[in-house]
């Protein structure tokens, strides 16, 4: 008898069938990876076993946990179970904690509720649990509020809440998706240790095969509310017997075919003066002219005042960054969250001005230009954002949305000319001209990201800055979008600056990588070279922490041998 057994679970909301007969089971001390793309029903499966479904949800089938019939248990019994025998960790740590209660209250609350312990004892246990998840008392007293903690630290608090009463089963729904790779590795390690230490069962929900390959004893792969494939992790992911498993595995390691349009520049250490670089070396000359020249760019933000009498100390987000980007070059800017990469990107896009330093785009200095004088430069650089849902006004049609950057042109195109340009841009990203008269909600996530790429292309820019452009997409869609980026670079010669913490993205479509750490560029070089053999500490840390399907499977084989 397994700890958790789900048999032919069906779930519908209204007339919409979300789960169509799901079977899975978890034993004590076992890690089950539940994999699937968005809409596959994996989160709904988790919410079912917590009985935290939306009000209108209708379920049938059997869910048995520790001998309890979950689907038919009274609410009072579920309250006893939740937080005591089953703990749950959610995807978004930034919003998972109550902002007006201290972390101590939030951890101790469940302990008091379930054990009837007095405040003191509950707080002692909460303290011990927070220590265990890596939040020591000196820096993280119980009286801290969530807003005083970073995303990774908040996720530790959520894990402390979920594990405080040593549950028999921990449900973790995409627990690291919102975190950078280094934090992801730390949180996964913490989860693994807790599972080993307390012989918990773990239901790990993820869309990331590499993470699951690393963590899970068995995997269950879901699609459209059905289980496609299930079994022992190593076997399932190595043999890839099921076509969908194969498709997922291929998509997640997908590298678009592309030739660098660009002869790799000599490897230079950062912060070298012009004279130090021997350009006429064995590796030849630049084939393309310089598009973007960044010199000693620094950005300070006003810090927080600590007392009435001391001056606030400025926070330096970007420290003396210098680099060149050439026409047609595809460059990745990688680093952990908070390293300053988005601040740098905002300055390049002239959405923010550096405290000091120079940014030249197409030979023109951007930092001193007025908003009106920036228009020609803005036309030549466009941006693609992370979230394809939030970056479109839902009340406008595609034609208007994609045509938006055209106002940057000197002369406004006529209506028919405008439609033609939109049609062309849509064609370039693989959509059809007929899509022009639709609204954004009529498109899927991947199609919307194509729309934002079309919008970026319409002014024929020389540079596209893409801020985590595929991190919100499912693996198969993400592979398509990466192909699109690669193709546009080949055909149109657009230069890219890809901002990402995902090294797989960097590897897939960039010629060069810059590693940013605490506001500085600490390493720069050809993508393959840097990612295979990073020299800087920050680079090594990123590479070591990045989940990698092949590496994880190799490790698994080595451990079994």
């Amino acid at each position, binding site marked *: 008898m397994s700890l958790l057994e789900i048999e032919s679970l069906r779930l519908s909301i209204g007339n919409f069938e979300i789960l169509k007969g799901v079977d899975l089971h978890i034993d004590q001390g076992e890690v089950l990876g539940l994999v699937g793309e968005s809409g596959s029903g994996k989160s709904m499966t988790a919410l079912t076993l917590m009985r935290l479904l939306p009000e209108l949800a209708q379920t049938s089938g059997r869910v048995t946990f520790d001998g309890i019939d979950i689907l038919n248990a009274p609410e009072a019994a579920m309250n006893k179970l*939740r937080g005591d025998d089953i703990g749950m960790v*959610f995807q978004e740590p930034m919003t998972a904690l*109550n902002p007006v*209660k201290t972390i101590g209250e939030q951890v101790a*609350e469940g302990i008091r509720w379930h054990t009837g312990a007095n405040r003191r004892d509950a707080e002692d246990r909460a303290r011990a649990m927070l220590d265990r998840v890596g939040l020591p008392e000196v820096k993280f007293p119980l009286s801290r*509020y969530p*807003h005083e903690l970073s995303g990774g630290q908040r996720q530790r608090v959520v894990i402390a809440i979920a594990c405080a009463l040593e549950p028999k089963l921990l449900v973790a729904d995409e627990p690291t998706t919102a975190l950078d790779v280094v934090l992801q590795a730390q949180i996964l390690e913490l989860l693994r240790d807790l599972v080993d230490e307390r012989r918990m069962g773990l239901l790990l929900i993820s869309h990331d095969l590499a993470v699951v390959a690393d963590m899970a004893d068995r995997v269950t792969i879901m699609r459209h509310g059905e289980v496609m494939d299930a079994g022992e992790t190593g076997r399932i992911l190595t043999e890839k017997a099921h076509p969908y498993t194969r498709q997922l595995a291929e998509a997640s390691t997908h590298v678009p075919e592309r030739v660098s349009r660009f002869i790799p520049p000599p490897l230079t250490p950062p912060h070298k003066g012009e004279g130090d670089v021997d350009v006429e070396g064995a590796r030849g000359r630049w084939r393309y002219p310089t598009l973007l020249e960044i010199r000693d760019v620094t950005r300070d933000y006003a810090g927080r005042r600590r007392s009435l009498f001391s001056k606030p100390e400025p926070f330096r987000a970007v420290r003396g960054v210098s680099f060149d980007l050439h026409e047609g070059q595809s460059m990745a800017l990688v680093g952990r969250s908070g390293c300053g990469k988005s601040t740098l990107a905002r300055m390049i896009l002239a959405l923010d001005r550096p405290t000091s330093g120079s940014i030249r785009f197409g030979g023109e200095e951007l930092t001193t230009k007025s908003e009106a004088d920036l228009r020609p430069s803005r036309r030549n650089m466009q941006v693609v954002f992370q979230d394809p849902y939030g970056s479109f006004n839902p009340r406008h049609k595609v034609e208007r949305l994609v045509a938006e950057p055209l106002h940057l042109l000197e002369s406004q195109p006529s209506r028919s000319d405008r439609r033609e340009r939109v049609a062309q841009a849509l064609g370039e990203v693989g959509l059809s001209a007929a899509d022009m008269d639709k609204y954004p909600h009529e498109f899927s996530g991947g199609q919307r990201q194509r729309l934002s790429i079309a919008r970026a292309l319409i002014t024929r820019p020389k540079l596209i800055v893409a801020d985590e452009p595929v991190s919100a997409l499912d693996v198969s869609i993400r592979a398509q979008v990466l192909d699109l980026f690669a193709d546009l670079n080949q055909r149109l010669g657009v230069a890219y600056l890809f901002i990402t913490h995902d090294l797989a993205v960097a590897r897939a479509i960039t010629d060069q990588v810059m590693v940013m750490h605490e506001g500085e560029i600490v390493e720069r070089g050809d993508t393959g070279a840097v990612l295979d053999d990073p020299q800087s500490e920050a680079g090594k840390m990123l590479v070591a922490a990045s989940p990698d399907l092949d590496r994880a499977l190799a490790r698994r084989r080595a451990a079994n041998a």
Partner: protein
Amino acid sequence: MPIWRGYDFHMTLFLSKRIAIGILTLLVASVIVFSIMEILPGDPARIMLGMNATPEALAALREQMGLNVPLLERYVNWVTGMAVGDFGNSYTYRSPVIDLIAERAVVSLPLAVISLVLSTVIAIPVGIFAAARRGRMGDTVSMGTAQVGVAIPNFWFALLLIYVFAVWLRLVPAGGFPGWAGGIWPGVKALILPAIALALPQAAILARVTRSAMLEVLGEDYIRTARAKGMPRRYVLWRHALRNAMIPVLTILGLQFAFLLAGTIIIENVFYLPGLGRLVFQAITQRDLIVVEGVVMLLVASVVLVNILVDIAYAMVDPRLRARA
């Protein structure tokens, strides 16, 4: 958890900033009130003496009332006077304005406080109740009632109350105010109907705001976290959702106070209460400018004060605001 745990110099800074802004608001308001009263046609001296007054008598009275000094000087005299509690002398009552105000404030202040408390204690539980039973019978009925409450004019509701409770049931007097000298109970009895009439529309709005604030908070991730901890629905509602939902509710509460004060002018007339509202109403019809100015400034000051209190309440409810201050 002690709310003032976060107390540090930020809180002091926050408070001093709020108070400074409040004083600035008062100054701006004083300029506006003073200029409007100056621009309005009508010479108070002539109004006091009537149409048949001799030019000599008029000049003498103008001199006596300080209407002959230059505008700026008059403004400065007025403001500095108010700062030390001297609001000048009424043209028609011929007694210090501050005495008139004090006499009336003992009616209006309790009236405002009672109706504010009344609307809060009715509205917040109703809003929470409706949010907790969203889409069900209780929600529909309470929000339907609230909709009616928003739509009913308060003076009409006041007349209805008088008819039912004073004329028909004879529980309370239909109007007038016996003063506090005869004990608290007769005073409260005289104020209870006007307070209800004032509170009803306020409560209706506040209940709707509370409901929508609660619904929004109940959809937040941290509510799910609390439920996943095993906390029952009702506990989560009161212990996790309520405090987060209080921020928009406090905002509306602060704004409503100003409407409450404006509402007293009508309600005091309906109930023949000798309060500030009636005082200002009569002073306007009699062109007793100095009384109008004094009372309006007092009302502005009380609104400013309430908004400072609301800001402090924000900081107590939300630790993020404490930190950002």
